[in-house]
C-alpha cells in the first residue's frame, strides 16, 4: 500500500487537527473530571460532517473513506480519548453494520440521520454473562407475528445514554447456539426499552457507558438486521471494523502522551540540564516513537484493506493489539517522565494513562486479538 496522504486527506488532516486543538482539547480535562458527555462537541462535529465520514453521499454522508475516519479518531483521541470513542462507536459499531447488512429501506431510514449527527449510534453485544464468550447471549428475541419481543439486558454499552439507534444482538433460536443469534436495529423510544445504570469508570469517563434493559421490548419486524441467525457473524464483522477505530484511538492516546512528554522533558531541568538531555530519556523516547509509528502503519494498513474490500480481520486485530499495548506503554512512561507532576491532574498524562487501559479491553481484549491472529496463522 501507499502510505502517503492524498491531497484530500492532507486537507482533512489540517482541518481535524485544528478542530481537535481548538474545540476538543480545551474541554478534555473537564469532561474527564465531571464524567460529562461532551454533547456540544458532538454537535460541532455533526455540523462539519464528521459524524458521517465514510458514509456514501446518497445516504447523507460525506463520502469519505476509512483512512479519513481513522485520522479523525486518532486526532480527536490525541487530545481527548472520550471524544475519540464517541465517534468510533457511532461510526464503526452502528453505521457500518447498517451500511454493510441493512436493507435499502433500513439504510434510507437510519443512515442520513446518523451520518448528519442528528442521531447518535451504539452497539449492544456484551452481557453480564457474555463478555469474551460473546456467543453465550441470554437476551431473547421472540417472533410475535408482526413484531419481535426482546427480553434481557446488555452491559457496558458505549454512548448508550445519548444514543438514538442501537444495534442489538439477541437469541432467536437457542437450540442453534451461535447460529441462533440475530441482529436488530432498536430505537431509543421503542416500548419496553430503557437505559440502566451508568458505570463509574477509570478512564474515558465522559463516554456514557450504560446498561440496556429490554422488558418485553417491541421491535418492528422490519428491524431485523441482515439474515436471521447470522447475528453473530454480523457482530464479529462489525468488531473487525471497530477494532480499526479503537486501534486509532489507542494510537491517538499514545501520540498525545508523546507530544506532552517531548514538550515536558525539554522544559524540565534537573542537575542543571533538561531531562531530555539524559540518554535514558532519549533512548526510551526513540523506542516509543518507533513503536508509535509502527502502530500507525499497522492501523493505516488495516484501514486501507477495508477501503479496498480486502480481508482485514487479522490486520485489524494486529493493529489493535499493538496500538493498545503501545498506548499503555507510552502513557505509563509519560507519567514516569513527568515525575510527581505526572501523577497529578495538573498534567494530562495521568488522564491519558487511565484512558489508554480501556483500549486493551473493549472490542475484544488483547487476549482475544491474540486468539484471532493465531487462529489465522495456524488455520
Amino acid at each position, binding site marked *: 500500500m501507499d502510505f502517503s496522504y492524498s491531497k*484530500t486527506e492532507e486537507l482533512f488532516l*489540517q*482541518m481535524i487537527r485544528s478542530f481537535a486543538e481548538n474545540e476538543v482539547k480545551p474541554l478534555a480535562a473537564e469532561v474527564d473530571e465531571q464524567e460529562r458527555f461532551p454533547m456540544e462537541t458532538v454537535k460541532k462535529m455533526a455540523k462539519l460532517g464528521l459524524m458521517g465520514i465514510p458514509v456514501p453521499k446518497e445516504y447523507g454522508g460525506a463520502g469519505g473513506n476509512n483512512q479519513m475516519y481513522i485520522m479523525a479518531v486518532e486526532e480527536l483521541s490525541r487530545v481527548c480519548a472520550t471524544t475519540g470513542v464517541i465517534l468510533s462507536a457511532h461510526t464503526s459499531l452502528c453505521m457500518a453494520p447498517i451500511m454493510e447488512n441493512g436493507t435499502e429501506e433500513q439504510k434510507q431510514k437510519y443512515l442520513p440521520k446518523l451520518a448528519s449527527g442528528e442521531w447518535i449510534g451504539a452497539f449492544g453485544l456484551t452481557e453480564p454473562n457474555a463478555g469474551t464468550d460473546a456467543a453465550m447471549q441470554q437476551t431473547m428475541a421472540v417472533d410475535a407475528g408482526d413484531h419481535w419481543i426482546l427480553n434481557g439486558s446488555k452491559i457496558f454499552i458505549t454512548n448508550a445514554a445519548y444514543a438514538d439507534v442501537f444495534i442489538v444482538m439477541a437469541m432467536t433460536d437457542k437450540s442453534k447456539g451461535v447460529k441462533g443469534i440475530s441482529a436488530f436495529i432498536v430505537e431509543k423510544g421503542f416500548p419496553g426499552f430503557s437505559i440502566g445504570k451508568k458505570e463509574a469508570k477509570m478512564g474515558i469517563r465522559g463516554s456514557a457507558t450504560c446498561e440496556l434493559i429490554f422488558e418485553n421490548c417491541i421491535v418492528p419486524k422490519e428491524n431485523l438486521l441482515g439474515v436471521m441467525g447470522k447475528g453473530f457473524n454480523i457482530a464479529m464483522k462489525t468488531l473487525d471494523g471497530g477494532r480499526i477505530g479503537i486501534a486509532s484511538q489507542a494510537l491517538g492516546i499514545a501520540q498525545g502522551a508523546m507530544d506532552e512528554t517531548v514538550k515536558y522533558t525539554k522544559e524540565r531541568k534537573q542537575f542543571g540540564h533538561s531531562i531530555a538531555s539524559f540518554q535514558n530519556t532519549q533512548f526510551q523516547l526513540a523506542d516509543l516513537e518507533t513503536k508509535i509509528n509502527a502502530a500507525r502503519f499497522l492501523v493505516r494498513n488495516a484501514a486501507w484493506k477495508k477501503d479496498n474490500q480486502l480481508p482485514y480481520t487479522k490486520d485489524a486485530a494486529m493493529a489493535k493489539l499493538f496500538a493498545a499495548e503501545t498506548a499503555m506503554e507510552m502513557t505509563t512512561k509519560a507519567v514516569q517522565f513527568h515525575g510527581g507532576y505526572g501523577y497529578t491532574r495538573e498534567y494530562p498524562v495521568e488522564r491519558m494513562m487511565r484512558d489508554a487501559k480501556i483500549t486493551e479491553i473493549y472490542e475484544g481484549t488483547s487476549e482475544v486479538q491474540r486468539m484471532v491472529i493465531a487462529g489465522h496463522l495456524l488455520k
Partner: protein
Amino acid sequence: MNIIVCIKQVPDTTEIKIDPVKGTLIREGVPSIMNPDDKGGLELALRMKDMYGANVTVITMGPPQADLILREALAMGADRAILLTDRKFAGADTLATSYALAGAIKTMDYDLIIAGRQAIDGDTAQVGPEMAEHLGLPQVSYVVDAQLTDHHSLMVKKEDEECVQTLEVEGKCVLTVLASAYQARYMSVSGIMEAYSREVEIWTADKIEVEEEKLGLKGSPTKVFRSYPKALKTPGELHEVSEEEAVELIVSKLKEKHII
C-alpha cells in the same frame, strides 16, 4: 451580490527567520497557511453568503503552491477560486502586488472587495488600501464587522487601538478585515471531499488589465536595503507588591542597571 476576497499564503511562524546574507525571509521548512486576517475576511464574505446569498470568489497572487489555500477556501464554502500566477509577477513589492490584483479585479464583476488588514510575513498592511487606490474605490481598513442595510449600503465597524467607528459606505468599496473579527469556520468534510475536483482558474499576466512594466520586480520601487532579526529583549520580571514597595523596587532596579 459578488464578493471578491484577496487571500495570501504565508509561512506559519511567529519567529520569522531571515537569511543573514540576502535579508529575505527563509520559507523552507515552514508550513504555509492562509494569512489569518484573510481568513477573517473570508469568514465575513461567507457570512454574507449565508445571510444574503452572496457569491464568493477568492483570489491569490502567488506561486503554484498557493493552490493549497484556494482549495481550503473552497472547502470552507467559497464559490470560485483564482490563482494569479506568472513569472512576470515575481519580486513584486506591495505596489506591484496591489497593481496586479487590481488589474485582475478590473476584469471581474463585483460589488465588494475584501482583503485582510495585514499579512503576517510582509506586515505592511498596504496591499488592501493600495488596491482601492488603483481601482478608485473608497476603503475602510481595520474592519471587525459589516452588515448590509435595507438600502443596500454597508454599515461597517472599524476598530483600532484608540477607537471604534461605525461608517456607512455606499457602492463598491474595499474592506480590510482583522483576524480577530470572527472565528473563521472550519472546512466541512464534504467541502474537503469536493475541493480537489473543483476548478481553480489559473490567470497569467496576459489575462488581466495591466501594463507589463508595472509588474513584479520591474514595477517595484521598494528595494530592501537591509533586513535583520531584532535582538530579543530579556524577559520581564513579575513582582506582586504594594504601591510604595513598587516605587522602591523600580528605583533600586534602575540603579542596579546604572540607568539612574
